[in-house]
Structures are given as C-alpha cells and as structure tokens.
C-alpha cells in the first residue's frame, strides 16, 4: 500500500507545494528515526528544486552511503545511490558527460569529509557545477554512532567512549580553501533559511557546498545526554549558530564559538564543464 499523500500550504510560499510531485510516495515510509534531521533537509531540498523551476527529467540526485545518503530513493528524479565516500566522483562523471543535467549530491559528513575527503577537495578545486549538500550530524548514523570528522572534541561516540580527541573539520572552510565558488551553512532548525540557501546554491554555476547542521538524536543525542531531538536542535542548531549577516552587529562574546550560517563565500570562476567545452574541445577540433 502506498503512503498517504502529503501536501502542505505555507503562507510565505505563494504557490501551494505539492510534495507528491517530487516524492516517490510508494517508497515511503523512509528509514530515518523519529527526530532525525535528514527529513527536514530533504524537504528544504525539494522546495528549493521546485522554486528553481528545474525540469524533473533533468535533475539527478546522487548520494554515497549513510542514513543521509538514502535520500535519493525517496525523490522522483534520476537518482543514484553509490558507494561510501564516492558520490562526488559518480556525480562528476554524470555532470561532465551530460552538462545539461542539474546534479545535486547529498552526502553525510562522514561520507563527504572522511572516506570521501579527497574527492571533496578535488571537486571544489575543479569548480564543476555540482550542488553538494553535506548533512552534518557529527556522527556515523548508519553504522551506529561512531565519531565522524565533525564530532566535537570531548564528545561521546561508540568509538570514543572516553571522549573524542580529534579536532573536527569545518566543511565550509575546507570547501572555500579548496576552491568551491559557493559556500554556505544552514541548519535543519532554520528551515526557511535553509530552503533559500539551497536555492541559491542550485542557481550558482560552479561547485556549491552547503554544510547543513542536523541532528542524530538516536546516537549523538543519546550518547551526549541531550534530552530530546528538539533539545538538540535548540542547543546545537539554534543557539550554536549565528547568521553571518547578524554576526557583524553582535558583540564578540555572542558570536564566539558559534558556527556561522548563511552564504559565507561566493565568487565567480570558470566552471569545469564549460572550460572543457570552450577550451579543450574547441582546440582539439582544429588539430
């Protein structure tokens, strides 16, 4: 039996949004735990795709392996669930072979920054037109709560029972340093802001990275003594972040130690597929 139709009207969005147009309702229910942030990100992604006015047949959603990487199965596009860490490489193949497609990569923090760290860096360096949504929940959800490259020092995980001693990565700083031309951060708590940020990322030509802080209440939450999923969202996503536009106006002590949200870096630089077509293919023709 297929799941009930999901529809919703929101005042801020002028057109009623039909989720069923973009979901695969017969593939629901999803695998995510109650309180998991991944579903909220999925919602923001779908609304952004809709608002970008993209043709479903020309959208490709690619993921690696992890709880977050199950997203493609639920959405009605050309969808590819690949190998742990390799989503960006598969996506690069598709985008480069068929540049008229809009390729969106959904990946966990472990998927993107640990096993896939090398591909992350080089994707940003090439500035190939991929929209990369990193679901940063500071844990390996799928394998049961081991520490990830974004786990804060001192945190509990099933592989850091004495507290994690590894300094975490800042995905945005890394993306920027590696050459990504659009870098932003959002959270599952700030849903409307997230939707807008993803839309901006989709509309950007080049590698766009959105680091999305979301919660894994099942593992990270329970092991680190958060009372509930909402408590986690409040502490980590709401109180633990500040919008970059407000940050300048606030006294330093209100910004210190908080992750910045919003568009953190945006520059124009030639996009990889276009460069290949205009420089290499043109030159090769004459030879």
């Amino acid at each position: 039996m297929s799941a009930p139709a999901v529809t919703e009207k929101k005042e801020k969005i002028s057109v009623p949004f039909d989720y069923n147009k973009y979901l695969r309702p017969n593939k629901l229910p999803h695998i995510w735990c109650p309180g998991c942030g991944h579903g909220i990100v999925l919602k923001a992604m779908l609304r952004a795709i809709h608002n970008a006015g993209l043709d479903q047949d020309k959208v490709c959603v690619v993921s690696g392996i992890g709880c977050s990487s199950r997203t493609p199965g639920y959405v009605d596009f050309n969808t590819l669930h690949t190998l742990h860490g390799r989503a960006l490489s598969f996506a690069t193949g598709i985008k480069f072979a068929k540049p008229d497609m809009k390729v969106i990569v959904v990946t966990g923090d472990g998927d993107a920054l640990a096993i896939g760290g090398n591909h992350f860096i080089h994707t940003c360096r090439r500035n190939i037109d991929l929209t990369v949504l990193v679901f940063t929940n500071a844990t390996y959800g799928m394998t049961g709560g081991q520490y990830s490259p974004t786990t804060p020092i001192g945190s509990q995980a099933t592989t850091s029972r004495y507290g994690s001693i590894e300094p975490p990565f800042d995905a945005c700083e890394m993306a920027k340093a590696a050459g990504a031309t659009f870098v932003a951060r959002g959270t599952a708590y700030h849903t409307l802001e997230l939707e807008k940020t993803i839309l901006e990322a989709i509309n950007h030509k080049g590698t766009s990275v959105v680091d999305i802080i979301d919660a894994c209440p099942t593992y990270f939450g329970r092991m680190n003594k958060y009372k509930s999923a909402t408590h986690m969202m409040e502490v980590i996503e709401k109180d633990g972040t500040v919008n970059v536009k407000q940050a300048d106006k606030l006294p330093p002590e209100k910004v210190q130690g908080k992750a910045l949200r919003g568009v953190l870096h945006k520059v124009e630089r030639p996009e990889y597929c276009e460069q290949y077509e205009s420089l290499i293919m043109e030159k090769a023709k004459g030879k």
Partner: protein
Amino acid sequence: MSEKKKKLLQGNEACVEGAIYAGCKFYAGYPITPSTEIAEGMSVRLPKVGGKFIQMEDEIAGMAATIGGSLAGFKSLTATSGPGFSLKQEALGYACLAEIPCVIVNVMRGGPSTGYPTGPSQSDIMQAKWGTHGDHPAISVTPAYVQEILTETVRAFNLSEKYRTPVVVLYDEIVGHMREPITIPAPGELEVIDRAKPDCKPEEYFPYDDRYLIAPLAPFGSGYRFHVTGLNHKQDGFPTNDSKVIRENNERIMRKIEDNKEDIWKNEEIFLDDAEIAVFAIGSTARSARFAVEKMRAEGIKAGLLRPLTIWPFPDKAVRELSKRVKAIIVPEMNLGQMVLEVERCSKGAEVLGIHRVDGEPINPGQIIEAIKKFK
C-alpha cells in the same frame, strides 16, 4: 577506396584506437605505469570526437566517474595497472551489481604492492575474476598482439554493452609497450554493439525488468526517471530485503554470463588437431608458446597451443575437451600459479604442468620447449 590505415603502434595506443572505434565517448582515470599511454591517448582523441576525458584524483574516483559517464549514456573507459586495479575493485563490483556497462583495461605489472612497475606480469588473472567482494559475474579478454589489443578492446565494449556488465581487458606490460605494425579497420568493418535502450513509456520502465535476462538501460536525463543502487534491489531498482528477490537477482547476473559463454568465449588453436602435448597461454607468454610449439613441430614433436582470448568466463569446455585428447597441458604464466589451477580443475585425464615466473622477465620459448620435451 579503402579507408584502412596502416600504423606502427604500441599496444596501449592500439587500445585507444580500439576504444575510439567502438564509440567510446568518456574516459576517467588516474595515470599509472604501464598503462599511462592509454590515458594520454584518450585525452587527445576524445575531445576530437565530441567525447570527454577527465583525470580524476585517484583510481577510485576514476572508476566511479566512468560508471557515471556510462549511466549518462556514453560508452566509458578507464585504464590502470597493479595498485590502481586494486583501488578500482569496489566500484567495479558496483558496476557488476548495478549492471552498468563499462570497460576497464588492466595492463599487468609486477606485484604485489608497488612491486615492479615497469616489469611485465600476469599476476592479476585471478583478481580480474575475484578482485571485488561478493559473488559477481566477470568477463575478461586477453589480447596478445598489438592488432589484437585494438580488436579485443572493441569486443570488450561490445560484450559490455550487450551483457550490461563491466568487462576487463587484461594484458601484460610487454604487449602494452610493444610496437607492431597494425591496420586500423575501416568504419563498419568490425561489429560495434550499442546497449539496448527502452522504448516503453517512462512510467512502465524498470531498469532491471524481470521479463528480461538483460533489461534495456535508459540513459539518465532521457525522460526515464529511475533509481540505481549498489544494494540488492528489485526490478524497479529500489532496495529490497526479500530473500527470494535477492537470490533471483544475484543468480540472474551470473546466469547472463553463464548462459552465454559460447558467445563470450574466443580461442585460438594452433596445431591442436593432432597434438599430444598442449600449451595453454595468454598474452606475451602465448607468443613465446607459439614460437616453442612451431619449433617442436619442426622437430617432429606433436605440440599445440590453446590460446584463450577470453579468460573469464574460463574456457572450461575447450580445456576439458583438449584434456581428453592430449597427454599433458603445459601452462606457462608470469605468476606463481593462477590459470594453472583452473586448467587443473577442468582437465579430465591430461597431466597439467605449470611454468611460473615472477622476476619481471618474460617466459621464454626455451622454458616451454624444455617442459614439452618432458612429455614427448
């Protein structure tokens, strides 16, 4: 007017010619000796024919992007050697299960590990079959001449497109770097097969439609929206825990090769009709073997050669039949005993003797002659 062109080419260059002839339009890889000339050649040739070349950050990415290129609808190639072939294995298994056609060239060098990068070897024969985890289908072709690298690369693409599966082109460094005069076939001279594409309505399309042994594969972006995963899946491409479906699918991907072995196999037989002693060899070793066998014939010794151009699926039928007619089968190979185990498995009656060498030197005809003479 004939459009045939004579060229003096290196094996790896012939591989590039073969790929272009077959209609390859996408290459993603990472350079490694002794296969690098393939990447270099493809980087020059592909953009001229409207294709794409990308040098990835490692072999894992190269294999993954190659699969991506194929899913986008283009015939895709990657080439590597030794350590690079090891790195590609996980994604190669993905292509087996997800049934994405693509061609992987492995120019064999000395191993294990970094081993002997510039030395020839045939020690990846088993890896070409068993390199990735899990039971999976394997097709691997083994050219021995520069001309044959071209034609076997075309055949590899054909098999890959026809059976919707990755195909490994396996040859040793000697053949890869050897130069020989070859003929570039005229367009239309060699058969070129393209994968079956669906013609049903998009809403009726299943990427693993169980009405077929090998279902048509729609390119991404062509209006057929479907899901691909490396998880065990149903005919619609979505993951499943249904043990019946898992079993059927795992068996089907093996069966599509098993049931078509006659089509996939290809052997060259030299002096086998009345042979009493046979040699079974591939690649440059088969060239030594041919020389040895001809020498033996000149001396009146009834030796013959069975040279498989398809090593996987293993030519069990040919070996079994041969083993009933000859006293002995000699298996020279540049490894410590891989093909010889398969030959032993398939032999019914004949004695099997391996000749093995892992010092970076080719197996010379003298070694094979010595072995043949033991059985005369």
